[in-house]
Structure formats: structure tokens, C-alpha cells
């Protein structure tokens, strides 16, 4: 069996499962946030439902926090009230769910983690099975702790070698989008392996698994290793199993990528699957840059960007907005002197939250503005006006481009 099949089998109380089989899965953790939880809170109360395990259902206010609209404030109040009444952990303003879930020790290898957010696929980086659900079904999971799922077929990506200098997990994620297209992994699991994946930091792996859903995948997963163990040290006292795929595991399709020759990659506006080597976009002028989000708001991302920005200035026509994914990351950026570097370069440093990525607040794009962003989506209107254009890229590309005022190959700045 594959990692995904093994985790689903264990969670369904079965010795084995096969793709296509529908199983009732016991969930280890479930979460929601202020944008999609309020869709079920009232009904949950009205029906007199209870939460199956108060320590396993978690709430966040991260998408529009602090709120810039009174209606967003109402959603946060509603989420806080639900957390209070049902005695659930609630993280209000501490950062993005997809960083806090792992950081707070809620995500362990071999476990099943679900929530009302499509980018829940991120936690596959820790060797967990994780996927998004709608609000109504999440209400069901809050109440029962179980949910039916179809065991997915798995696509295997073998990435050999080692990514070059200035090439990051994000570049690999964007390259894979090109191979799969917007629905090439629909209903499927994606497993990533090979030397270049093993060599990625946990932060880099989180970028890769984060974007699995952009190809329609149910989940993305990477076998857990010592890097995951090191991250979890001090964050959990629970035992966990680092699940591996069997040598005879069956994959629906195997893709081979040469990691050594992968260039920095950007997605041209419209879809994350419109990706191409950065060379095809080099020289494109833009005025807005975003460094952060659940895809790239972590320590490695800021360290790489800061190394490029150190001693340089952001171009006078560019507004570079920097948003750490959590308070812990914010603190560490202070401790490592990175915040100083960003401020000296002329960037705007923000509080941890989802930022303008989801199009709700905090740095939206106006008519015809062009943005280079480390986020995961770039369909028309994603970050504001429908005429605005969004290029998706790695933190290295965003930092180098922000200095130059034009899309730039970061290898020129190393």
C-alpha cells in the first residue's frame, strides 16, 4: 500500500484498503476558520449537537484578521463565541491555520487531519493524510469525528538530484502544476519522493503539498523523516508512526522530474498551471509584490528573501508586502535580524494573517495592477480587481524581482 492507503486503512480500522473503496475514516484533528465556520455554527447550535472531542476540533481567525470590514469583525466574534461555548481551542490573530496546525503540534505523521480549507493538503509535508471539506460536512465531523471517503489512486512524483541554488520547493510545485494542469490530480493522492524532495526543508515540503489541491488532488504527501521529528520535538508528547509506502505499492502513474535541471519557475497570470521557467517572464514590469501566505510565509522563505534584499532597496515603483505565517515566525524573524533587513530595504512588514491572497482585505489589487506573489492562486480577481494580473513565484523570485521592478531570475542575485 501507499502512505495514503496505509493511513486511511488504519483510520478506518481495516488491515488494508484499495483505491475506489469507500471507507469510514476516524479523524484525528478537524479545524475551521472564521470565513467558513460561521456557515454551520447556527445550525449546529439549533440542532443541539455536541463536539465529539473538544481537544480535536480547533478554530482560527486568520483570513481577515484584524478585520477591515465590520462584517468580517462579526464573523470573528461569531467564531470566538462558538469556541467559547463549546470549549474549543481558538487562535485569534496568531497566524494562518496552515502554519499553526503543525506549529501547535496538532498535525502528526500517520494521522488524519481535515478542515474547511482547500489548502489543508499542506500537512502531507509531515507525513499526515490531510484534506479539505465544505462547511456542512465539517459540522458533521465536529459532531461525529468520522467521515466517509473514497480511497484515492496515487500519482507518484519522483524528483531526482537536488534543486539548484535559487530554486525552491515552490518552483517544484509550480512545475508540477504545468505537468498536471488544473484537474490532472482530481480525486487523487499525490506522493512526492526522490532525492530532491528528501533534500527539501520541511518549509519547502509544505509549499509543495500546499499546492497539491491546485491540480485537484485530495491530498499531497511526503514520507516523514528526521526533519519532521526535529520539528515536532517539544511540540507534542504523543507517539506517532512515520508511515512509508511499501516497495510494491501500486501507483496510478509515475512522473519523473530531474531536480538538478529544474529552473526557477513562475506561473503566468490566470492559472497556477500556466507555469514556465522564469526566463519566459523575465523583464515583465510590475508594481506590487507579496511575500507570505500559507504557501510561503515560513522561515526558509524569509531567510532566502532577506539574503537577496540585504544591502539592497525595493524598487521605487514596487510595494513589497511581507506577511509571516505565524507569530512564532514573526518572532524568529526579529531574533534573526530579518525584520530589520526587510525594513531597511523598504518593505512593508505586516502582522501574521492570510493577507490579500484570498481577496478579502489588506493589500488588494486595483484595476490593471500587476503583482508578483508567493501565494498559490492567480485566477482573475483572486486578489482584488478582475483586471489585475498575478504572477506566482518563489520567495527568491519575488525578492529579486522586487529589487529590480521587473520579473528577475534570482540566480542573478545570489
Amino acid at each position, binding site marked *: 500500500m501507499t502512505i495514503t492507503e496505509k493511513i486511511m486503512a488504519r483510520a478506518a480500522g481495516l488491515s488494508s484498503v484499495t483505491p475506489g473503496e469507500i471507507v469510514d475514516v476516524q479523524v484525528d484533528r478537524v479545524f475551521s476558520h472564521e*470565513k*467558513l465556520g*460561521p*456557515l*454551520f455554527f447556527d*445550525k449546529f447550535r*439549533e*440542532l*443541539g*449537537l455536541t463536539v465529539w472531542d473538544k481537544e480535536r476540533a480547533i478554530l482560527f481567525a486568520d483570513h481577515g484578521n484584524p478585520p477591515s*470590514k465590520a*462584517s468580517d469583525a*462579526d*464573523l470573528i466574534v461569531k467564531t470566538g463565541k462558538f469556541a467559547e461555548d463549546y470549549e474549543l481551542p481558538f487562535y485569534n490573530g496568531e497566524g494562518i491555520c496552515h502554519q499553526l496546525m503543525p506549529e501547535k503540534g496538532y498535525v502528526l505523521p500517520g494521522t488524519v487531519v481535515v478542515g*474547511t*480549507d*482547500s489548502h*489543508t493538503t499542506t500537512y502531507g509535508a509531515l507525513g499526515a493524510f490531510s484534506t*479539505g*471539506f*465544505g*462547511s*456542512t*460536512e465539517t*459540522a*458533521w465531523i465536529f*459532531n461525529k469525528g468520522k467521515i466517509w471517503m473514497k480511497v484515492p489512486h496515487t500519482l507518484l512524483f519522483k524528483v531526482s538530484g537536488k534543486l539548484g541554488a535559487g530554486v525552491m520547493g515552490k518552483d517544484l510545485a509550480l512545475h508540477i502544476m504545468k505537468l498536471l494542469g*488544473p*484537474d490532472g490530480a*482530481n*480525486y487523487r493522492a499525490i506522493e512526492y519522493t526522490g532525492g530532491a524532495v528528501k533534500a527539501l526543508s520541511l518549509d519547502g515540503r509544505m509549499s509543495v503539498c500546499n499546492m497539491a*489541491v*491546485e491540480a*485537484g488532488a*485530495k491530498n499531497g504527501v511526503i514520507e516523514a523523516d528526521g526533519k519532521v521529528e526535529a520539528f515536532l520535538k517539544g511540540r507534542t508528547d504523543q507517539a506517532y508512526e512515520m508511515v512509508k509506502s511499501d516497495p510494491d505499492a501500486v501507483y496510478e502513474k509515475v512522473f519523473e522530474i530531474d531536480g538538478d535541471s529544474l529552473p526557477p519557475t513562475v506561473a503566468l497570470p490566470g*492559472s497556477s498551471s500556466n507555469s514556465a521557467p522564469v526566463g519566459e517572464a523575465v523583464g515583465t514590469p510590475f508594481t506590487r509584490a507579496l511575500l507570505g501566505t500559507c504557501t510561503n510565509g515560513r522561515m526558509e522563505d524569509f531567510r532566502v528573501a532577506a539574503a537577496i534584499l540585504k544591502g539592497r532597496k525595493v524598487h521605487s515603483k514596487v510595494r513589497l508586502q511581507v506577511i509571516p505565517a505565524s507569530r512564532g515566525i514573526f518572532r524568529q524573524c526579529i531574533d534573526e535580524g530579518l525584520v530589520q533587513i526587510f525594513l531597511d530595504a523598504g518593505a512593508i512588514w505586516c502582522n501574521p494573517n492570510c493577507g490579500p491572497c*484570498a*481577496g*478579502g482585505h489588506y493589500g488588494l489589487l486595483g484595476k490593471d495592477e500587476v503583482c508578483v506573489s508567493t501565494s498559490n*492562486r492567480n*485566477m*482573475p*480577481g*483572486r486578489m482584488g480587481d*478582475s483586471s489585475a494580473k498575478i504572477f506566482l513565484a518563489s520567495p527568491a523570485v519575488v525578492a529579486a524581482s522586487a529589487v529590480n521592478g521587473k520579473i528577475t531570475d534570482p540566480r542573478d542575485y545570489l
Partner: protein
Amino acid sequence: MVIKDRVLEVYPDNVSAELIAHTRYITALTPQILGDAAMLAVDPDFHAKLKNGGVMAAGWNFGCNSSREWAPAALYHSGVKLLIARSFARIFYRSAINIGLVIMECPNITEWVKRGDELETDVATGAIRNITAGVSGKGTVLPESLLRIMTAGGLMEVLKAESGKK
């Protein structure tokens, strides 16, 4: 459940959940606001077209990207009676069933229906008849348990029945 109505529009592949219910129009999570927001970022004439027919057709991967249940909820509250697509994105598909939005997968639907056609669709058997064009096709039939959730008005209705409240 048999639905006889006209096709309001045939939408393309990869219509994103983000655009079906765009953040800029969702000022509060009420049925009225959700319904009014439906499809505006994709098709500003959606609500006018809805007056001429309650059946939506679409290409591959309808409802992709975001997990926002706002998207199927917006279509449901706008008054869409039936949505047939060549395929659906996973979260949208589950959410639609779970809120009682009537949907059907039909891998070649966009090849033989066009705007204004009158369709007669039997959700339980998958039979789709294009009365206007005089052709028929077949959609995927949901397993009995899911069909029951969808036609009962969604998962909350099932929970309501379970909890003994009505």
C-alpha cells in the same frame, strides 16, 4: 426526482469556486446575499439568464480551487434547480450534495446541449433528454445513500432527522 427546465447557459471548463462566489460580493453569510452573489464574477448576466431556465451546464472541473461552501450555497440560493457538468472538483462536489444542490456528472454534456434547450433529467436514473434537440444522454447516478442526502435537502436535514427535531 425528475427536473424539466431550460438550460440557462453552458459554462466553460475550470470555473473556480472563488469566482462562483467571489469574496467581494459576500458581505454577510445570508441566503439573500449568497444567492445574489452567485456567478457574478463569471457571468454578470447570470441572474437575467436564470429567469429563462433553471438548469446550468458546464465543462470539466466545475467548482475548482477554494473549499468555500459559499459557492454551491450561492447557486442553491440563487434558485438553480439542476447543475450538470462534465466533471466537478472534489470539495465542491461533496458540498453540493451536502447542502442539497441538485447536481449531476455527465462527461459529454457540453457536446449536446446549448443555452435555451429544454431538458428533462431524472436524477435517480441518470437519464437526460434534450427535448429541444431531440437527443438523449446519461449522467452518473449517485449511490443511494448520497442521492438520499441530496434530495432530502442536504446533510443537515439528515442530522436534524437524527436529532429528532423537525
